């Protein structure tokens, strides 16, 4: 058994930022990720980020990833790669399978869960054919693995991931034949949407996929128009030749460990589904367990980093490395950033959902812990 002050599960933008803040304050940190390389989803995000004026706006995700890794190296943060956290016991013991061969128990005073999210599926006849994949899967293949999973692609979903990946597929040399959106209006940031539009890719709102054709692989897709109650309108079908169908229909937080740990949950559709209840310190309903990033609500890497920093600072405070006053001052700064990131047409919805979650967290967590 290994004893540590803080164990962080997940070395994405949230986990890395949490580790850096906690380590900077003096906490003994162990960062664990199942992948061979840290960074989570950051290195596939080759687009420039938005952000508060001062904070990383205009920098590409992958370069932010490089900066985070350099900082984590500078602080000498202990990192276990190829370490899958498979269980959590007594709110303090993590069961880690290392290098797929050896089990190890890590006993931590505090735990931060920063496990990220997984892509949602939508089903239609043929959705299980090779060639149907998550948009993030295609993004991983082109930007991280440098292989093209398809040459003629249709994208279902016009949210940020949909339009960002559509553009990145074009950059990688694929043809994107269309972007479909079931809702009557487009869902992504204007800048990303406009780039895809300018490249000549048609957008179909109020449309979805009826079925995919093919035997060993996708060969074509049938699309159909939807009425205002999202029902397919017969007679509006239309077959398009494609070899790849990308689904960008949202993400679901990876919450298994939080469930196992006994955290209480709320169902918040605007943030991706069941979320561990948390307060403005990223504290869950379990005494020594914090959360940060997509697990606490699907947003983007910039918010994940801020939440990670919050969790790191508050853990350091509870462990006695930072005074409460200092923590409050720094948290306020981070909250200002978060509120800027959660503003505007798309951000406000997340802000409202987060606010009600935090309100709820305040009530429930006081009840539970203090």
């Amino acid at each position, binding site marked *: 058994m290994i004893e540590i002050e803080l164990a962080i599960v997940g070395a994405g933008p949230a986990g890395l930022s949490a580790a850096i803040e906690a380590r900077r304050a003096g906490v003994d940190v162990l960062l664990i990720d*199942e*992948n*061979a390389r840290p960074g989570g*989803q950051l290195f596939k995000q*080759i687009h420039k980020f938005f952000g508060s004026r001062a904070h990383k706006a205009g920098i*590409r995700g992958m370069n932010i990833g490089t900066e985070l890794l350099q900082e984590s190296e500078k602080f000498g943060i202990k990192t276990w790669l190829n370490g899958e956290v498979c269980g959590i016991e007594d709110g303090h013991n993590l069961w880690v399978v290392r290098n797929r061969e050896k089990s190890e128990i890590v006993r931590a005073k505090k735990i931060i869960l920063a496990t990220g999210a*997984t*892509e949602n*599926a939508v089903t239609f006849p043929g959705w*299980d*054919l*090779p*060639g*149907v*994949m*998550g948009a*993030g*899967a*295609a993004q*991983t*293949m*082109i*930007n991280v*693995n*440098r*292989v*093209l*999973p398809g040459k003629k692609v249709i994208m279902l979903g016009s949210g940020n991931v949909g339009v960002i990946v559509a553009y990145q597929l074009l*950059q*990688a*040399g694929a043809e994107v034949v269309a972007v479909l959106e079931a809702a009557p209006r487009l869902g992504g940031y204007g800048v990303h949407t406009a780039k895809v539009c300018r490249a000549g890719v048609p957008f179909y709102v109020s449309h979805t996929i009826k079925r995919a054709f093919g035997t*060993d*692989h996708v060969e074509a897709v049938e699309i159909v128009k939807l009425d205002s109650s999202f029902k397919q309108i017969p007679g509006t079908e239309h077959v398009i030749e494609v070899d790849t169908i990308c689904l960008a229909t949202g993400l679901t937080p990876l919450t298994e460990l939080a469930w196992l740990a006994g955290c209480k949950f709320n169902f918040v559709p605007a943030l991706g589904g069941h979320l561990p209840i948390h307060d403005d310190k990223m504290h869950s309903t379990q005494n020594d367990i914090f959360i940060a990033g997509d697990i606490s609500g699907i947003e983007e890497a910039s918010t994940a980093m801020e939440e990670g920093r919050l969790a790191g600072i508050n853990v350091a405070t509870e462990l006695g490395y930072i005074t409460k006053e200092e923590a409050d001052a720094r948290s306020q700064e981070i909250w200002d950033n978060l509120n800027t990131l959660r503003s505007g047409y798309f951000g406000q919805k997340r802000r409202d959902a987060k606010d009600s979650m935090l309100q709820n967290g305040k009530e429930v967590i006081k009840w539970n812990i203090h």
Partner: protein
Amino acid sequence: MNRIPNHPILEDEKPEKEVQIFVDNKPIIALEGEMIAAALIANGIFINRYTTHKHKPRGIYCAIGRCTDCIMTVDGVPNVRTCVTKVREGMKIITQQGTGVWSEEVQND
């Protein structure tokens, strides 16, 4: 070849050492350190396995080790997620049928 050697944003790919791996006993060339699923796609192989009951083909779906659609039998071990497992010189990969079978050598190991 489905590789993306040059890219408008990403740096040109550094020439990696080539390794030989075997897919259903046929040799293919992969790049050292890449994921098995990527090497297969680079070589135009899109089917990783067939399902147990209906024998339907499956390819990559999530590419980050979550969905198990890409599992294959690797060096005698079934159900290996090929999207998060690196290639190694001489690796033997089998298109998996159903839940696959363990090779005897591995079982007796």
